[in-house]
């Protein structure tokens, strides 16, 4: 599965989608879910929480391990994906559909500083060597 070109990415393996209203939707990448394996628990941030860029704000747990999810940029949490409470495995089957939380960025221009799909793929490839 390739990384969708309409998304932005972080070095810590989050994907970021910019919505029409200027909010962002965040999930973890195909590469991240593959590293973690079968997902069994997601702890999402509470709505209204103010996050700094790079702050730990969610946890995804597979059978194998727990991994932190980081805020891709500064802002406020607007919503968490309640579907993942009952079906965390959606992250495995559909990593770019199974979003974890939505944010309102403090500064919309921060999104431009994130990696595009090609830069993210290059970062993943260099990690593997």
């Amino acid at each position, binding site marked *: 599965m390739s990384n969708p070109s309409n998304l932005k990415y972080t070095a810590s393996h989050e994907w970021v989608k910019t919505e029409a209203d200027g909010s962002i939707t965040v999930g973890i990448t195909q590469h991240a879910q593959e590293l973690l*394996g079968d997902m069994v628990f997601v702890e999402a941030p509470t709505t209204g929480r103010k996050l700094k860029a790079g702050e730990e704000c969610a946890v995804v747990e597979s059978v194998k391990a727990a991994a932190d999810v980081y805020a891709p940029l500064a802002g406020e949490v607007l919503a968490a994906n309640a579907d993942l409470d009952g079906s965390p495995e959606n992250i495995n089957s559909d990593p770019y559909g199974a979003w974890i939380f939505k944010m309102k960025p403090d500064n919309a221009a921060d999104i431009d500083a994130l990696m595009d799909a090609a830069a993210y793929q290059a970062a993943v490839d260099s990690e593997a060597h």
Partner: protein
Amino acid sequence: MTTLKVTPLNAAHRAMGAKMVDFGGWDMPVNYGSQIDEHHQVRNDVGMFDVCHMRVVDAKGDGVRAFLRYLLANNADKITVPGKALYSAMLRPNGGVIDDLIIYFMTEQWFRIVVNAGTADKDIAWMKEQAAVHAPALIITSRDDLAMVAIQGPNARAKVWEVLPQTKAATENLVNFQAADCGEYFVARTGYTGEDGFEVMLPKENVEAFWYALNKVGVKPIGLGARDTLRLEAGMNLYGQDMDESVGPLESGLAWTVDLKSERDFIGKAALLANPPSSKLVGLVLLDRGVLRGHQKVQTPHGEGEITSGSFSPTLERSIALARVPNGVAIGDTVQVAIRDKLLNASVVKYPFARNGKAVI
């Protein structure tokens, strides 16, 4: 960069799509896709595990029984029927656990021992050191020429007989924890999953063909990920996590394997008698949402404990753990586990959690 050790099945794992990981210096398959699917595959049908990294040791010569009687915490005298196996801890004089292992009584001149991968070298060094003093005529051989495959699940034995029909007559009447020496194949009705099945030891050069032959009759490969959740549900200890040289067997849920009743002396016995345990191993089932993991702290009215192994149980569909807690904690108590910034409730249970395809708590 260190080079990882490989088993003779390394190429087969890669050909079957395994995700490989560094497991204590060995390049091993963690899964071949979904580890939860692999877990259910073993509980409900049959799967096979590469356990070539574990070490087979043969102890041969007069007096081998007497030597093992002194070397091990469990009593070798309990096994008198040929092929019968015994699980035991091997202790330091201070009672710390060097390793847990299985011995098979074959003849009064031959016991076979299977030890863990990560401890094999120190185990053999310890055995030889003790033998030099107590049984100098004994010959202890690391069988590096042998490979081992575990076939586990309700349909495991039938699948092995399909591939190795020549072993059926000698193995169909084996009881649990008994082995038969079938020439090239040493077939033991043992395992680490809580399911029926065999562990088969065979010459290294034959193991790849054996692996593919099993696969051809429908036996799916299972990685170390599912091996860990299967053994945890079955309430089986993992050396290095649930016990090691810093703790004794009585604090590690292994009292049932330590024979303190007989007159027999064994290495570590005096230390065990002098130091009654103040903690014990119990099972935990998480009542809140989350996942229990090793080293998380457990808060109880009797003091703090610690999780030794924790994961998600595919059979129970909730998180379970083994934890070392103060003796005062009782089955049925609710305790709190510190997970990140939260205290989550867990119920104290008597393990195993699952065996023979079903939840048992």
